[in-house]
């Protein structure tokens, strides 16, 4: 997995509550059997005026000029400011894959849906939960200042604004450790293989009906 230590970049808005995974990446793109290439279709229904199809060249599609990510000032953004319950809906990891492929490394919102939140960490994206009032303030500052950029320092658990204000955030220790070091979850879990085997043997004795080949 990609590691995350410090990210410095332009912040872009996704200014509505309850942004669901269908909005992040519409289902027609879920037919891909790959993990990459979803970036051009991130927020497809908002970004373009026509209906997107998988495999299409997005460069000549009509774009929605009203959508902030299409504005010059947000090009190259790597931090997404969002509202409450971001990422609700499906468990599709295509949502963080699309955000990552587009170039977002960090999402800041008052709250996230559980599965999405978890999926972000698996893909080197840092989701940060902050007080609603603080998020609103960041939105205001971003709108007021073109080129508004933030620095996100995971080690110190701090967001630094252009005026050098430092905003602390929480992150679970294990996830922080994995993200900082870009650790492969599976490898880590397999370090406990012996314990898993012991548990399994005990469990099989206790609940033998949970084991056995399906046919």
């Amino acid at each position: 997995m990609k590691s995350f230590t410090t990210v410095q970049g332009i912040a872009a808005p996704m200014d509505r509550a309850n942004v669901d995974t269908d909005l992040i990446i519409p289902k027609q793109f879920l037919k891909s059997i790959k993990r990459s290439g979803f970036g051009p279709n991130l927020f497809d229904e908002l970004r373009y005026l026509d209906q997107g199809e998988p495999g299409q060249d997005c460069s000549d599609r009509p774009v929605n000029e009203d959508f902030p990510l299409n504005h010059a000032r947000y090009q190259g953004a790597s931090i997404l400011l969002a509202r409450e319950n971001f990422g609700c809906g499906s468990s599709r990891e295509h949502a963080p894959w699309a955000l990552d492929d587009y170039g977002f490394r960090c999402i800041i919102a008052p709250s996230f849906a559980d599965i999405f939140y978890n999926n972000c960490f698996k893909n080197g994206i840092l989701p940060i939960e902050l007080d609603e009032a603080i998020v609103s303030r960041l939105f205001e500052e971003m709108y007021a200042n073109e080129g508004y950029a933030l620095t996100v320092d995971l080690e110190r658990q701090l967001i630094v604004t252009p005026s050098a204000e430092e905003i602390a955030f929480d992150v679970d220790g294990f996830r922080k450790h994995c993200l900082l070091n870009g650790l492969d979850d599976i490898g880590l879990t397999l370090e406990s293989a012996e314990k898993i085997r012991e548990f399994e043997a005990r469990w099989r004795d206790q609940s033998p009906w949970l084991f056995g080949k399906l046919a």
Partner: protein
Amino acid sequence: MSGQTLYDKLWHSHLVEQRDDGSALIYIDRQLIHEVTSPQAFEGLRLSGRKPWRRDANLAVPDHNVPTEKSEREGGIDGIIDPISRLQVQTLDDNCKDFDIFEFEINDRRQGIVHVVGPEQGATLPGMTIVCGDSHTSTHGALGALAHGIGTSEVEHVMATQCLVQQKMKNMLVRVDGTLQPGVTAKDVVLAIIGEIGTAGGTGYAIEFGGDVIRALSMEGRMTVCNMAIEAGARAGMIAVDEKTIEYVEGRPYAPTGEAWQRAVEAWRELHSDDDAVFDRVVELKAEDIKPQVTWGTSPEMVLPVDGTVPDPANAQTGSEREAISRALEYMGLRAGQAITDIKLDKVFIGSCTNSRIEDLRAAAAVVKGRKVADSIKLAMVVPGSGRVKEQAEQEGLHEVFIEAGLEWREPGCSMCLAMNSDKLGAGEHCASTSNRNFEGRQGFGGRTHLVSPAMAAAAAVTGHFVDVRDW
């Protein structure tokens, strides 16, 4: 020490390792696999040279992409017209062969929506931990199991290690007491719950559903309720085991038999919250207050009783609520103050892992029997949840009732629940749907979804607009 909740019991019985930082390794008994969220997980295994930890813990079935038209379905995978869908279904088959994972293939009689198939086959059982790369895995909690949706990285993780890295969630109890009015169903109960707590109300919690109403529901009804726990933000929903659960499981193809059955039942009888268990949050609803529900907006919490009127943004409490209502009204093509019963429909979809079980089809058939679909309805379709449900419905003659009334009778799959196959809404079309999500574009680009119960959808098919099934 206070007693344990059902969730606590399921958690502790599967705890392999508790780490100091609050995370834990939880052992997984069953992983269900479908074609959309698995290809990248198999690819990951291949790249790292890993193998499934326990092959007998996995069961695969294609459901999201499969065509539901008989003519297209008959040719099996080769008959799938859309080449990208075909490749995805073929990839599942290939991966299952490569990794020796058991699959109900596209035209197996047992094929169907993964969340319908699991309980029906006894492949998901009480007391299990169950995962699937699909958020509606919460469905299986109806059997007294700990079941939740996971992402593709976790699918790969569970395949390779038989464990999931988890943080213990908080406990929420949702109690619904009293007696439901006739015509009010499990779907209305869960929509009312979501209306009450909101789509993020359950975030961070495992929800246990309890109370008279939940006890009185059939197993199918309980699955409908747990299915939509995720729509309230909770990864897992569950219901205590009782005699109904045990009766449901008995005799299913993969259920234990003989002495193992006796032992299993004994263990399952413990799967309920202790009387003195403490919940972090308790929500109570009165059955008598619940009317048939209809969603008017683009989030499941935008729901109203059928006799309600569409909200006015002017009456919103906060700015963001006002904006959300305005945006939803615009997308849905509705005006503030419009009666729900005035919403005209173009299509009707009866199906999905929420409402495609035999009981749902019976309820819909009872409503349309001897009646005709309104002329203004362009398409009304019934998509059974599995091959078994389809067979059973045909034995009962339900398909004839539907066909005579003018509804299409399809082959099993997810179908228009998310429109990955050719079953879709056109832009601007209103659909009465028994599925679980009314997000923008969910059932087709620009499509407008209204979530309802099977009986409400059937009645709407006949009249062309929403009606109160209590008056039916």
